[in-house]
């Protein structure tokens, strides 16, 4: 297969292979480590009978590859779990069962994921607009006072932790000025308007920090492009500065911005723990931290897999966008 379609297909296959490899590694890390896996999975308050049950369900007597096979089978076609008396069916993609809460991991993730995705994609729009906008402005006004002030502000943005920005925003906007209620997650399907109002502050807190990185990257890429010969060509042909900045120089910043954005989106799905915690958003990050604290192994494994999925997916999308942005990219 050649051409763009072939490239997308090959990239998709690559993504699946990568995900498979990730699942193997995660499985090995969590289930093939020394110690009584059944006891750990079940939790500290399990009776020996329960532990024995868990050991059976995890097929701990079988060789490692058979166990992994069952795990994979669960993800692809689903699995049945017996909890002593009743049998619980866990349909595909089944990431297992939390023995501590008797909850299916997939269900748990599905309740948390919309929160995280709402947070990340909303913040992404903001950080792209703010970051790239600031970058363009400071590339345009390079060397002048306004540019130095912008650079200073973005530098401060990089250096300020999210819990400082978030707290200050909350105290000022919600406390002092009472412009917004203290954030509380509302589902998009319940009330889109309240959803947006409540997420506004979390979006800003997350976006302000990320925007700083985008501003610096945009500025640097644009200045690099501005020093290139083809910019001289357009200047020598009377093309105005606005066009040179907005059309030619900005275009050169697309590819690096896409790459950085993919990384940030991918890692923020599971990594925006601070923002989620600060604003009390029940997202993936917060749940993962909780699961780690109580050593709820199936939940941890499931969450890590899902986070890995988003990181890999974001990078695959970035590769495709990269090829669209720069036609010179050799499609292999």
């Amino acid at each position: 297969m050649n051409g763009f379609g072939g490239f997308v297909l090959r990239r998709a296959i690559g993504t699946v292979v990568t995900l498979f490899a990730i699942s193997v590694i995660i499985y090995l890390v969590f289930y093939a480590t020394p110690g009584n896996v059944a006891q750990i999975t079940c939790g500290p308050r399990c009776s020996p009978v329960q532990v024995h049950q868990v050991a059976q369900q995890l097929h701990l007597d079988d060789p490692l590859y058979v166990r992994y096979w069952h795990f994979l089978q669960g993800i692809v076609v689903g699995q049945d779990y017996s909890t002593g008396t009743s049998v619980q069916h866990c349909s595909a993609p089944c990431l297992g069962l939390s023995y501590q809460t008797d909850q299916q991991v997939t269900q748990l993730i599905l309740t948390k994921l919309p929160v995280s995705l709402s947070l990340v994609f909303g913040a992404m729009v903001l950080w792209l607009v703010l970051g790239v906008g600031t970058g363009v402005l400071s590339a345009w006004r390079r060397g002048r006072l306004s540019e130095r002030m912008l650079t200073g502000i973005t530098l401060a943005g990089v250096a300020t932790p999210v819990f400082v920005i978030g707290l200050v925003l909350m105290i000022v906007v919600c406390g002092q000025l009472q412009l917004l209620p203290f954030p509380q997650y509302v589902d998009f399907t319940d009330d889109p308007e309240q959803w947006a109002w409540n997420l506004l502050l979390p979006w800003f807190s997350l976006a302000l920090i990320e925007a700083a990185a985008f501003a610096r990257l945009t500025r640097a890429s644009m200045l690099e492009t501005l020093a290139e010969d083809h910019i001289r060509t357009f200047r020598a042909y009377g093309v105005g500065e606005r066009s040179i900045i907005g059309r030619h120089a900005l275009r050169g910043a697309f590819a690096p911005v896409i790459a950085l954005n993919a990384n940030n989106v991918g890692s923020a799905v599971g990594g925006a723990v601070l923002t989620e915690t600060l604003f009390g958003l029940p997202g993936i990050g917060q749940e993962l931290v909780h699961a780690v604290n109580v050593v709820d192994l199936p939940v941890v494994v499931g969450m890590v897999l899902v986070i890995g999925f988003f990181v890999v997916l974001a990078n695959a999308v970035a590769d495709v966008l990269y090829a669209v942005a720069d036609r010179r990219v050799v499609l292999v």
Partner: protein
Amino acid sequence: MSLVEVTDLTVGFGPLSAVDGLSFRLEKGAALGLVGESGSGKSTVASALLGLHRGTGAVVGGAVRVAGTDVQRASDDELRRLRGGKAAMVFQDPLSSLDPYYAVGDQIAEVYRVHVKASRRAARARAVEVLDRVGIPDAARRARSRPHEFSGGMRQRALIAMALACEPDLLIADEPTTALDVTVQAQILDLLHTLREETGMGLLLVTHDVGVAAGSVDEILVMRHGRAVEHGPVASVLGAPGETYTQELLGAVPRVDASRESDGGVSDEVVLEAVELRREFGHGKRQFAAVDDVSLAIHRGETLGIVGESGSGKTTLGRMLVGLLEPTTGAVRYEGRAQSGVSPSVQMVFQDPVSSLNPRRSVGESIADPLRARGERDEGRIRGRVRELLERVGLEAAHYDRYPHEFSGGQRQRVGIARALAAEPRVIVCDEPVSALDVTTQAQVVALLGDLQRELGLALVFVAHDLAVVRQVSDRVAVMRRGRIVEYGPADEVYESPQDPYTKQLLAAVPALDPEVAARRRTARRELTAA
């Protein structure tokens, strides 16, 4: 009123004075060549004509009038109308002079719409029209291509098309053919000539190559250190130069019609031999042979010139001869024995004297490398030998501890030669050793190589794209095209009675110093392409 009037122009970058009191005029429809070596200020003058120094911190003095616009006093808007509208510029490197992200036609249309009130559609149509005018085949389709899908020559044509879009009165061409192969160079120069005949626009041609100017302009202005050395009709400046510098400059230009002053030091003994060399690159469908079935013999004390255009495989061949690349099939034999890998007896001098020396090490250390590689451990002896070599190539022994950036291009190439000599080779393969140098420096380096050859009985393989330089230095010549040798024989025979059509085409493309010869060659080229 003249098209261009430059009066007492000065341009300074900080403490550096790039142009120092230059005055000239260019009448409507006339062509002026601005000729000089690197650092002479010729490109700075070209930029000053369009006011491109504005806002860069350069200090510009004097008066510049172009097509009725006082460039110094013009408002930004007036200046923008001048740029591209009345005077258009074509730059040196067509590879980097177009925006890689946009279609070529769109870039031309964008420039057109800056100057002419036109719809997007009309501007695109104009772009296709000018692309067609400069000889881009299937212009309507190719207008949608991005620059990287064009060859070097086509990119330069596209830039010329951009220049033509608004029908300017003046075309400024800054080294328009320097990055191009000689046959493509001839095509571009011919195109400029034809366009000038048809549109009556004036031409300011900035070039380091006197030959390029000779065939394309009516008047020539020789620049040095930011000043005019000599200015006059092209025939008289080149035919009977009045100034010493012009004489030196012309004397240094290698002539394609003058054979090597042979010194008879060539023996029949074969030192290095290539036997049916073939080298492939890439895999699967993208596999191709960069060098294909090449057999050569290099005799003691002779210079074998290998000449070809970019992509002809000459560098790959040179690298195989020194053992930097293994051939896919075939063999390199040194004194009759098959060689594998590098050996001290066959050394190489590289093209780019800037990047072929480690900037973080002193030149003495670089030259000492081959000595250390051979197992020499005595620091005193190493230093002594390096000093000797430095002096031998015309540098000073005290230069041992200096770093590459402290040297000029020519001096760096001398360092490269000293490094090659350190291993006491019998053969030196020089890959484009002078193509990055000015003609006067070029002549000095060529003379040095000749001296070393006589003195040490060296065999030289001289790989270059410049037919005149190759003729100047070579006893025998091999002409390469697409990995194969198309013609191989004594230099005089190859140059005076070429057999292969490609060799003929190459020779017809070489710029001539005599305007009359240049005109004759242009006619000959037209006939060759018509045939």
